[in-house]
């Protein structure tokens, strides 16, 4: 049931752990952070940790964090984080608890182009691909946020690809967006784009930042300079931090899912403690991109049920800490094309959704995050729609049971012409690309697969939807800023 436009209350859910289970994981995490610690080479971070009372070895870069500081950090971290949108009505409030939102994600470098005969071809991604995917995700109802999907590979050698990506994202959606591969040295540039988007209004940019920044720890137990500096800068500027561990059970984490839960928890809580030491109440999202190292094929299996279990476990653990979660890889697939494998592995996202992961990000992504498909982006809108429908549950009320209708229709007749049936149509799931016809009509309409139907939708959306909600002057200023930074970049390279 949707109570208002920014929050939704799910009616069904999943309890994976007892309180004793979560206490055991938490105490084990404290023990690791107190006895083993984490590594950071960042002198500023080392000093912040040391001043707060951590045991810092400046020679080795090892920081051991006492339990009470972590408990404080958990307490100070907000239980809800607003993802501000250019259109205020589309703000997303991530609240620790069973409230699920959906988005695309990926920093893909390959684009899978549609072909009518089902053959596959890939090519490097471009800024134009990013623009198209933003427009599509903005149009699709079931995306609550429109995170960028691909890297602007075409700008890699000739300019500031990162700023092209962020400005293209900001211009082509009125839903909340983010930046997925930030460099700490460019933080001021990202924040400048945030300010330009508000026409230079610094107060608005600080109160309602249009970006969240997403960054990853190095497992096991390392915080790179990029992570600590982004943690510090996001906290100072009240920009939501989305800190992620990508520990692989069996390689960069212990082979048991329980053990990997402990090491990834230690990494996230170490970064979160730094956030709260810098600025109490700084918004942080507990991220999750943990899965297994498939020990037979030697690859990180993102379409595995183990990933679904880890994402769900993290969602429940973070809820226990009253911190919102954003599950980055739930529903990702190892398949290289939009096929049956993709469908089956997408379905695994249902588990973290039931566990109450607050943000599930997978729209359009294939091939372990490497490849993006616009058709898959539209199909995933339908998959999200089905999952949202499931989360609403059955809603058993006296009114919904329709006892009078049941008595009226009685035995062996049908409910088709009743007023309650007509009214009920609006509440039914209604996919755009999944065909529900009998075989006959389906054949008459061209025997199209879901991918064919999705491609038609892609073309229609790109022709008819203009999501830009910015004044033309602001768009121009944003583009000018990026062009200026491109020039600086090229001058730097020339030297």
């Amino acid at each position: 049931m949707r109570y208002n436009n920014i929050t939704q209350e799910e009616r069904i859910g999943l309890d994976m752990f007892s309180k004793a289970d979560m206490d055991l994981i938490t105490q084990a995490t404290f023990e690791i952070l107190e006895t083993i610690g984490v590594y950071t080479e960042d002198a500023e971070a080392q000093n912040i940790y040391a001043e707060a009372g951590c045991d810092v070895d400046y020679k080795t870069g090892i920081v051991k964090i006492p339990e009470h500081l972590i408990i404080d950090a958990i307490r100070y971290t907000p239980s809800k984080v607003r993802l501000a949108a250019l259109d205020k009505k589309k703000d997303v409030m991530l609240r620790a608890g069973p409230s699920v939102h959906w988005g695309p994600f990926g920093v893909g470098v390959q684009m899978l182009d549609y072909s009518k005969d089902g053959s596959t071809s890939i090519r490097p991604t471009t800024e134009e691909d990013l623009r198209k995917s933003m427009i599509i995700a903005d149009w699709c109802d079931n995306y609550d946020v429109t995170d960028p999907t691909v890297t602007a590979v075409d700008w890699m050698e000739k300019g500031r690809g990162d700023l092209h990506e962020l400005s293209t994202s900001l211009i082509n959606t009125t839903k909340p967006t983010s930046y997925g591969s930030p460099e700490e040295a460019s933080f001021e540039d990202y924040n400048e784009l945030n300010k330009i988007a508000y026409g230079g209004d610094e107060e608005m940019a600080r109160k309602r930042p249009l970006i969240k920044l997403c960054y990853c720890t190095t497992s096991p137990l390392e915080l790179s300079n990029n992570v600590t500096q982004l943690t510090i800068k996001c906290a100072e500027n009240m920009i939501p931090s989305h800190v992620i561990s990508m520990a692989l059970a069996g390689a960069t984490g212990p082979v048991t899912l329980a053990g990997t839960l402990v090491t990834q928890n230690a990494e996230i809580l170490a970064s979160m403690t730094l956030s709260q030491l810098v600025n109490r109440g700084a918004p942080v999202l507990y991220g999750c991109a943990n899965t297994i190292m498939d020990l037979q094929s030697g690859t990180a299996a993102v379409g595995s049920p183990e990933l679904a279990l880890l994402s769900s476990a993290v969602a429940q653990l973070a809820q226990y800490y009253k911190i919102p979660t954003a599950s980055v890889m739930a529903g990702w697939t190892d398949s290289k094309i939009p096929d049956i494998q993709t469908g089956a592995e997408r379905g695994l996202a249902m588990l973290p959704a039931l566990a109450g992961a607050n943000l599930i990000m997978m729209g359009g992504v294939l091939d372990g995050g490497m490849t993006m498909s616009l058709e898959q982006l539209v199909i995933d809108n339908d998959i999200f729609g089905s999952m949202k429908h499931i989360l609403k549950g059955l809603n058993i009320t006296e009114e919904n049971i329709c006892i009078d209708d049941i008595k009226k229709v009685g035995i062996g007749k049908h409910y088709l012409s009743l007023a309650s049936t007509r009214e009920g149509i609006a509440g039914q799931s209604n996919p755009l690309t999944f065909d529900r016809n009998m075989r006959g009509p389906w054949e008459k309409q061209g025997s199209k697969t879901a991918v064919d139907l999705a491609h038609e939708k892609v073309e229609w959306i790109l022709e008819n939807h203009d999501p830009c909600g910015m004044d033309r002057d602001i768009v121009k200023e944003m583009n000018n800023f990026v062009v200026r930074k491109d020039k600086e970049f090229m001058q730097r390279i020339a030297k």
Partner: protein
Amino acid sequence: MSAMLPALAGGNLIYGSGMLEMGQTVSLEQLVIDNDIIAMINRLLGGVKISDADLLMDDIKEIGIGKHFLGLASTRNGMSTQFNPLVFDRNMRGTWELQGAKDAATVAHEKVMSILENHDPCGLDADIVQDLNTFVAIKDNEFMRGA
């Protein structure tokens, strides 16, 4: 997705494998693919076990910071608990392309052919099989006479 929900809710037996088009069409390839999907759901139902032994605290402390867990005995032992799909491909794109860039249905078809060639599930004595066939043949004859 729609099989996972009744499984989590405790449905004791879930049917529908191999079926397409609301149960009117059956695909042998889908039957093999559904075997992978069922294994996935079973793994989900196994959950995440949390106990002192499962946490592997000694291993975490031994490996410490910046190293990997690949060579540990616990990792070798844990290999057998991983879910390994028959049809779903986990290779990188390059390897997948070298192996023919097959979609799940194509891999499932190869599996179907190999199973039909190599698997004989019959556990009955030849005599009993013959009795069963004879019984059905008698009933066929009765049915045709009745018609």
